[in-house]
């Protein structure tokens, strides 16, 4: 191999390593309605990608393609290529259960199971068989809660119900629950829309910390939030990506008229 070839290969490897999800020409149909009209987007490792856009623009639909949660909607049909580390997630050989263990999700409304805090965290590790002894489970619970910044608040009452926590704590519990199965990507569907400003600030801090270890995709209605937490932003409008790129560039110097209008609050 020549020096140039080696350099080329390294660069490609780096790129390949850095891109977690590569999606091309993603279409989603709900019955006859086309909710996504060919979306191309890359999701990078160790970055927060924010999806913004007015309601009904398809950003949540896109998010739910990444861990195939659209499978639970009977009328939904997905075409196009969605590659996770180069492998098509919609390939028939893919085990959707394994996929969702690698791509965790946090929902709009905190949805802890009506179980204890402890059982909420070990739910995933138990079904996936990630640990076998009590000590291992305890360890998972402690590290997950610590990563989610909830450990100090709940370490003395792990046996009390997950639903007894406050809204912000519940959402952080859900994040801890997602972390517990050691995913590679975390999808967040408007994770702060049901929270007050203080809890929101706490979760945003957490998202920034989590970026170190995971690729994070966050759908948000709040442009300030997108600007605060994300490194890359994609602006969706009526089932298409109008513009995507560096967050700073999108918010300070958008290339498209529609993006500028949306960001300055002229519609949406």
């Amino acid at each position, binding site marked *: 191999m020549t020096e140039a070839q080696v350099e080329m290969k390294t660069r490609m490897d780096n790129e390949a390593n850095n891109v977690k999800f590569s999606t091309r020409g993603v279409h989603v149909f709900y019955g006859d309605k086309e909710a996504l009209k060919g979306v191309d987007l890359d999701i990078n490792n160790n970055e927060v990608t924010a999806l913004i856009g007015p309601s009904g623009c398809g950003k949540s639909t896109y998010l739910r393609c990444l*861990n195939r*949660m659209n499978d*639970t909607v*009977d009328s939904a049909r997905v075409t196009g290529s969605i590659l996770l580390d180069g492998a098509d997630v919609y390939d028939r050989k893919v085990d959707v*259960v*394994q*996929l*969702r*263990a690698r791509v*965790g*999700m946090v*929902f709009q*409304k905190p*949805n*802890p*199971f*009506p*179980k204890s805090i402890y059982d909420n965290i070990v*739910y*995933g590790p138990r*079904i*996936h068989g990630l640990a076998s002894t009590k000590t291992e489970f305890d360890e998972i619970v402690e590290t997950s809660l610590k990563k989610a910044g909830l450990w100090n608040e709940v370490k003395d009452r792990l046996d009390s119900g997950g*639903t007894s926590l406050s809204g912000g704590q519940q959402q952080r519990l*859900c994040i801890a*629950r*997602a972390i517990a*199965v050691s995913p590679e990507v975390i999808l967040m569907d408007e994770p702060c829309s049901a929270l007050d400003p203080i809890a929101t600030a706490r979760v945003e801090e957490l998202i920034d910390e989590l970026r170190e270890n995971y690729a994070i995709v966050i759908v948000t209605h709040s442009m300030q939030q997108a600007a605060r937490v994300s490194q890359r932003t994609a602006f969706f409008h009526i089932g298409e990506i109008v513009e995507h790129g560096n967050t700073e560039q999108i918010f300070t110097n958008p290339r498209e008229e529609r993006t500028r209008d949306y960001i300055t609050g002229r519609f949406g």
Partner: protein
Amino acid sequence: MSPVTIAFLIILVMTVAGYFIGKSRALHAAGATNERLHSLPSQHAAYLALWVGIPGIMLLLVWLLLQETTIQNIVFAAIPGTLTDGLTDAQRALLISEIVNVHHGRVFQAPRPEVVEGARHYGALVSTAGTALIAAIVAICCAGMSWGWSRIKVHFRARHGVERIMSGFMILCSMIAIFTTIGIVLSLVFETIRFFQMVPVHEFLFGLRWEPQIALRADQVAGQGAFGAVPVFTGTLLIATISLCVAVPIGLFAAIYLVEFADDRVRNVVKPAMELLAGIPTVVYGFFAVLVVSPVLVQAGGAVGLDLPPTLSLVAGLVMGIMIIPFISSMSDDAITAVPRSLKDGSLAMGATKGETITKVLLPAALPGIVGGVLLAASKTLGETMIVVMAAGLIANLTFNPLEGVTTVTVQIVAMLTGDTEFDNPKTLSGFALGFVLFLATLMLNIAALSIVRKYREQYD
């Protein structure tokens, strides 16, 4: 036309008249002072109509309740003392019914002169009462009308008045249900107390022999009698247990299938079909048990060398289990559907399979609702009568073997309280004692079920 019909028509006519009078009164009052009415004319009209109709109807009801007894008492008091002295209650009732029959012309043999005299007296009183009723109705309707009329003014709040009257009416309706329940409980309690005066409580509750076929009359040949209800209770529990063992798994799995797996087309067929099961009269289930299930089981038993009696508790339990499947499945269905979709999505997004989601998230969350449904179904099995009357036996048998005949509380009540009975011997009264125990048991089950369901409902609010 009987006086009652006439009185009813009068009330109807006067109520309608009251409506229009009230309306015109209200409009006049408004026209005279040139002010806006506080309430709509139709509300004033309804107010007046209610003031006419309600007193009229109430008087009519009270009158109907009291008229017959009052007249009979007056007639009886007028009969010469030589004839009425020393009569028992039953003989007194007989004499009065004879008088009433003569009055209506139903004569089987030449009546005694006193009876003829009584019948004449009775007839006179009835016709007087009819006239009096009509007069009283007219009077009270007029009184109501004039009171209501005097109240209608421009500023009168007929709107609220009508509402108050209607709410009073609704309270009355709800009271009827409560008082009926209280009445049922009291009638059970008094007969039960009479029973326990003849048979000691501990013998009833702890005795192991149930042989209630004692002599009704002194000259009858019959057994000594024993009123130990334990075999009856165990029989009831045995059949209820068998039926729950059949219905809980089938109903629960059917509900899970319908909620989580069936597509819309299947659900639209299967769900109504299952609910159809709940609409079948239990006596038809009884036929099914006796004509189909029992012979099949007996034959099957014969094939493996078991000599089975035709009245198996297993048969009654199986068929009753089929009967309560729709209750359990529809309660479980509701409970599972009520679990928020976000929980299900949360579990699926964690990488759980559908089955893991159902067993680890949906069922635990829905469990209180399911338990509530099972308890309601259990209280239904305890009280179910027709199937066990037809398919279970009459012999109280202290056994937990489903291949023997047992008897249940309801079967015994039917046996004790149908046919020739007299309400002064323990055989008949034992039916009330059994009924009372049954009532307490089902009441407790229902309270438990409802409190569980209520607690569970608060969980997601």
